[in-house]
């Protein structure tokens, strides 16, 4: 999984990036199955590997699929990342070990959910009961977020698209179409 992530940093072809991201999501789903989260794995495989990849491919179709090559590595960014990573690793040293049944996270509501959700809500799948009943407001909020995002996408890509392009009244339209050098020449002749 880390290998695919580092591959994503290096690859310049965005089509390959989208495909590799699908692989990354599938590996993540596998990892969730290993860690007993079957519902999450389903969702990740369907939504993460499926819909996100489709969305990315759609975006690539509307934009360009090759990334520009940049100059030298960004050393400052690398330093910031390494320092943050070291701090986080230091922070994990106090965390409970993997799979520890006495970890604080298992001390609170989880027992009640597992013990009583069968009688109180019904479905044998505890995740379903918690999602739809005990934490129903969370799910309502989730739906609100999705609705807002959908409205945003429709506004951004809907009817108005193409009318608000960045036109400069004094330039000829073909000048600003990415041709930087001609634009500069044009301005120099004006001066």
């Amino acid at each position, binding site marked *: 999984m*880390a290998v695919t992530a580092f591959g*994503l940093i290096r690859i310049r072809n965005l089509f390959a990036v989208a495909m590799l991201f699908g692989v990354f999501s599938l590996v993540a789903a596998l990892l969730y199955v290993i860690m007993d989260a079957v519902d999450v794995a389903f969702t*990740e495989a369907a939504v993460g590997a499926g819909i996100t990849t489709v969305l990315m491919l759609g975006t690539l179709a509307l934009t360009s699929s090759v990334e520009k090559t940049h100059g030298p590595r960004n050393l400052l*960014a690398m330093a910031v990342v390494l320092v*943050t990573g070291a701090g986080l690793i230091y922070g994990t040293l106090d965390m409970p070990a*993997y799979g520890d049944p006495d970890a604080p996270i298992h001390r609170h509501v989880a027992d009640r959910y597992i013990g009583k959700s069968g009688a109180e809500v019904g479905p*044998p799948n505890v995740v379903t009961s918690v999602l739809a009943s005990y934490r129903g407001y969370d799910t309502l909020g989730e739906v609100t977020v999705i609705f807002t*995002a*959908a409205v945003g996408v429709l506004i951004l890509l809907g009817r108005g698209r193409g009318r608000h*392009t960045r036109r400069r009244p004094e330039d000829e339209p073909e000048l600003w179409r990415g041709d930087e050098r001609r634009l500069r020449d044009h301005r120099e002749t004006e001066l």
Partner: protein
Amino acid sequence: MEFPGLFNYWVAVVLMMAGFYIVIAQGNLIKKVVGLNIFQVSVFVFYISMGKVKGGTAPILDEGIQLYSNPLPHVLILTAIVVGVATTALALALVVRIRDAFETIEEDETDALEAEDEAR
């Protein structure tokens, strides 16, 4: 397969830093969205690994099973995955619009065009 106690957190940290590096160091906007997604998946892995109980099974009630993994992080992450896709869709729509307006999706080029506009 047995890992030493804190390995799961370290995996999450490494993934998170990979995503973080992509977000701050790469200029391509689609690449940045991918980086954000990697960052997000690292948080998911962190949560799910915290919910695991050694010897437990998936939290689906059945006769004769005493030990289940914690269902609460699973629920939270289910919600987070779906919300993540919604925000990704919004981000990609913004990228498409930026491409419409600037004819490029490289951050340095859009910055240069903006500076040019302000200089006028």
